[in-house]
């Protein structure tokens, strides 16, 4: 296992652990995949996924600010509700206006990405609820391009003043306290010169993590030696 793979593994462990934080019935909003590595100039995408809605909750609108390091990543495109679980995009959500009133990326594909989306006004609540709870509910899909090497966190930002970022079907807030938020990251690293780009600068691994990394490194070295011996 490479250092990078070890880091992914650890991130997955952290994600799994995080998903169990909070009450058993809590909803979770997460970046999927939680972490990935791309080469400079390559593109990739992430989904913002909502799971665990209760039987009484149906998302009528959401407002999310996605933060990232716009030195490392360039924002390319985004699509709100790609699975159309907030109603058909052919349906109106305003008399003449769109459902999507996002501000999008800051100028030049920079951070942050402002997402603001309203469900259509014709699909019944029960139908939307079935759509949103029947399969992974992707609130938005976002594409990035790696700009320079480095680790960019992906932060689901909800400005404190916003308070509410999910509306139910009728226009009442879905309580933030019932939602677990799991952020993610994208590492931009040249595969020709693998290094430590995927460790956040200034981050000091815990001793236990260091030992795991050491074990993984030792195993990788041993495996490489075995391959070399076979060759």
């Amino acid at each position: 296992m490479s250092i990078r793979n070890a880091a992914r593994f650890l991130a997955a462990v952290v994600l799994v652990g995080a998903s169990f934080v909070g009450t058993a019935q809590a909803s979770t909003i997460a970046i999927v995949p939680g972490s990935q590595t791309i080469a400079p100039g390559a593109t990739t995408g992430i989904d913002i996924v909502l799971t665990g809605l209760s039987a009484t909750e149906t998302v009528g609108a959401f407002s999310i600010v996605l933060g990232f390091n716009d030195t490392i990543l360039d924002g390319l495109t985004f699509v709100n509700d790609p699975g159309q679980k907030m109603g058909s995009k052919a349906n109106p959500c305003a008399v003449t206006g769109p459902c999507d009133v996002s501000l999008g990326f800051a100028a030049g594909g920079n951070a942050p990405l402002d997402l603001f989306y309203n469900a259509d006004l014709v699909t019944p609540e029960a139908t939307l609820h079935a759509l949103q709870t029947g399969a992974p509910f992707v609130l938005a899909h976002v594409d990035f391009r790696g700009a320079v090497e480095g680790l960019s966190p992906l932060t689901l930002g909800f400005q404190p003043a916003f308070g509410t970022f999910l509306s139910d079907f009728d226009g009442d807030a879905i309580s933030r306290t019932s939602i677990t938020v799991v952020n993610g990251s994208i590492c931009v690293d040249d595969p020709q010169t693998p290094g430590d780009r995927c460790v956040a600068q200034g981050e000091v691994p815990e001793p236990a993590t260091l030992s795991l990394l050491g074990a993984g490194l030792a195993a990788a070295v041993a495996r490489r030696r075995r391959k070399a011996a076979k060759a």
Partner: protein
Amino acid sequence: MSSLSDRKGALGLGFAIALLVLMAATSASAETLLMPKRDYLMGASEVVWGVTTQANGTNFVLDYGDGVQTIGNVADRSYIAFNHTYANSGPMTVQLCVGPGAVIPGCTGELTSVVVNVYNGASLTPEALRGLNINRAIQNGLRYLWTQISGRAANFPASNFAFWSNQSYTALVVLAFENHGYKLTNNDVAATGLYEKYVVQRGLNQVINGLTSTTLTVQTNLGSPCVGPGIEAAPCVGFEDNSGSPGYTTAIASLPLSGSSALARHVGANPPMNVNVAGKTYGEVLQRILNAVAWNQIDGAAGPNRGGWAYGVANNSVPSSDSSVVGWDLLALFDGEAAGATLPALIKSEFGTNGGDANQHALDGHRNNNDGSFDYGANVDEVNTDIGRNLARNAIGLQGLHFVGELSGPRVDLTVAEMNKYMGQVETPPAGSGYACQINGKYNKGCGYGMFNTFKALKLYGIQLLPGVNRPAGTIGDPDDWYEDYRDWFVANQTNPTSTAGGNWSQPTFVFSASANNDEGETALAELILAPVALIAPDPGLFSTVGLSPQTDTNPINTPHTVTANVQSSGGSPIQGATVGFNVLSGPNAGATGTCNPVNCTSSANGLVTWTYMGGPNIGNDKIQANIGSLLSNVVDKFWVIPTGLKCDADSDGDVDNDDLVIIRNLNGQPASANPAADGNGDGSINVADYRYCSLRKTPPPPPPQN
């Protein structure tokens, strides 16, 4: 034959029955009371006290409510008082148990309790600590007056009278208690409460019983002084107090009746009262006193003394008007009018200059139009600078202007400016001098008569700030606030406030007047100045039930709300000069600050004070209450709602459309106060839920035009 054991049982049962009967008899006849509810400072040695009608020598336990008790035998049943230092803050239930074998808990004698509030000074704001110390000073001063009831220990509880040095001091003491909220009920129900029963009722008995009858006749200019409901036509019976100079002692005798809020109460048969007053209502007694005050107004030939008052009765003679006497008579008339008594129609114009003749009357006789001062004598001497002129007389002159309805204008401004010259100054009367107020002619802090008249005059005019006050650096509040300057001075100059024998204001720092020196009178004046009312306190029953309005109101959030306090006597007459506080007890705007009209929150001639505060962005129910000192009004409700007609109409154009949604979108994350209509769901903030809410409530497009 019964066995011995049976007989022992019978004896035991008999003893128990006898004990029960004895206890019942004791409960029915005896009475144990604690001091009224009050505030204490943690860590300070404070006086905790009570009384009992049980005999001296009876066992007692005084439980301070913090786990500490004093146990002993009653030495002075009229004043069971001990110093105690509270080590903790919070409400404490003080209990006093008196009876054989007294014990707490498990008191089998008489048990009474009161909840006191103990505050930790270190956790209070400087403003709150100052307020606490003012409250402590007031309560300690009232306690001092309790201790000074003439013959208290010997006469308690048998006497039906309470007396402080002379009739006039007695009247002022009773008014002081009344103005701090200790009043009788407006009926013949026996008084309850330590101060109400033993100070106010018995003090009123003393004042009323000292009245004498006199025959009032028609005056040359005033006409008949025999006014008021139920008063016979002239000649009529008037009541005077001849214990001193009736020109002012009669006026002072009226004060506790005006302040009683009990004008329907009857002078009872017990105790036996003099035949002049027996059986009459307090209202009738008051009216007959005030009629005598009117009769005592200088009448007769035109001149600068006419309309004034002199030391003696003036009835249709023209003695020299004395501005000191004028001050007391004006106060009697102010208070009486506030209480709802009737004044002769011409009494004000006789005092002022609008009486229909071309001559100056007493107001202008005393008044110096060059500088606005008010001379000792009504001599029309515009250049008089005699020693009689001082702050006290200037303040009486200002009251005189108010009495005749001159509420503003150059003469008022001139007198206020003259008073301002004395502001901030302190008297330094030498020990032993009975004329301390007069030593340097200032009559300000340290001179009771001067401070009292200044207090009345400036409160009546609603004047809060005077540039000459110039309070010391570091004091709390506006540096030009004369009343806060006075209150600080009283707190700083009280004598031994936390000793069981102290709490008075006395010489050498504080004297009654240029001609009187009496601790009880001085303490009464101090208490009157520290009271929240310049004249009399409102009827407690009315203020606590309808004192604040509107009782219920509903308005949109983020708009102002105004409540009105109505300060009125038991008969509904407006009372001016009462300082009203307002408090949002609970709700989305709990603790809100606001502004008063009049600005100093003191009632004007209509008895009203309004208070306006701004409702915040949140919906809910505010509970609001007014207070005049410790007297609390009814609690009124204010419901803050999202206005239905405006909901989601963020651009206020009468519909909900995409323009409104754009506004809501752009206000994402803002508080509702940014645009209340944009907070469609009314949760206090503008966010995506409001966008959703309002998108579901858009105004349908109009139907297409018909061909």
